[in-house]
């Protein structure tokens, strides 16, 4: 059965704050933290152009692509889960969140395999400035995906318990914004670490 529905879709009011103010304080703290790490990465690149020329070629681009697909898909599923709750379809919300959780867990599995493969190649966080900054960024992001996945479990439990309705789903919306932020961070990490050589 298609998850699409013919019920009217209530458009969010213009000028509103998605989720709540608290989550945006957290989101901007997270983005500041990532921005500092990106600046360190850029400055390290300016100081060591050769290391950053050779480094990306030693990373597993296919793993980076798969993880980007997983992150984007999880974000899409979370966005669809919001649409479902606004149409008063909590069961569909659970399906979409389940898809997002599968993607989050898939990301963690792919990343674990990828790091293990680097280990077999003799690559670790001490293998030069490129890998030091790469591991710092990637591992930090991995931790965010880990606890973000726990967050998906939490909003799934709340949905299952009937805590969200078309009129009140602030918690789900706040979590969605946070999860999209984790996605956004990876959308910068992937191109600068895997593609930009």
């Amino acid at each position, binding site marked *: 059965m298609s998850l*699409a529905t013919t019920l009217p*879709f209530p*458009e*969010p009011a*213009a*000028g*509103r*704050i*998605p989720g709540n103010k608290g989550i*945006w304080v957290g989101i*901007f703290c997270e*983005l500041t933290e990532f*921005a500092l790490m*990106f*600046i360190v990465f*850029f*400055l390290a*690149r*300016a*100081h060591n*152009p050769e290391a950053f*020329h050779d480094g*990306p070629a030693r990373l597993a*681009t*296919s793993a*980076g*692509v798969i993880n*980007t*697909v997983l992150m*984007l*898909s999880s*974000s*899409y599923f*979370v*966005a*669809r889960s*919001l*649409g479902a709750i606004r149409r008063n379809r909590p069961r569909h919300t659970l399906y979409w969140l389940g898809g997002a959780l599968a993607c989050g867990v898939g990301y963690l599995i792919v990343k674990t395999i990828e790091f293990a493969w680097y280990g077999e190649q003799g690559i670790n966080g001490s293998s030069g400035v490129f890998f030091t900054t790469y591991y710092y960024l990637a591992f930090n992001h991995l931790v965010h995906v880990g606890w973000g996945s726990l967050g998906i479990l939490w909003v799934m439990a709340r949905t299952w318990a009937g805590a969200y309705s078309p009129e009140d789903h602030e918690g789900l919306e706040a979590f*969605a*914004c946070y999860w*999209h932020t984790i*996605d*956004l961070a990876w*959308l*910068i990490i*992937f*191109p*600068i670490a*895997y*593609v*930009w*050589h």
Partner: protein
Amino acid sequence: MSHERKLTLAWLFLLALTLGGGYLGETAEPGLGITLIVAVVIAIKGRLVIDHFMELGGANRRIRRLMNAYFYVLPAMVVAVDLFGPLLARLTAI
């Protein structure tokens, strides 16, 4: 166009950009060209997620501007590192 359809189109476009980026990472020669593509792709992907997935398109102006600015400034830094790398290195040498 329905909200769901817009989301799906944004998702498919993001996936296409990702596959293109992966291909580029494997085949492209280093240089300013790839730097510009990386910067533009970061900006486009960021804007798509911010506008459609985060639903900030018509939301609180301050939040939207700050989020959009993030995805103007970071790509600009990518280009700046490529164009002015030696100068940046000199200015930040300890």
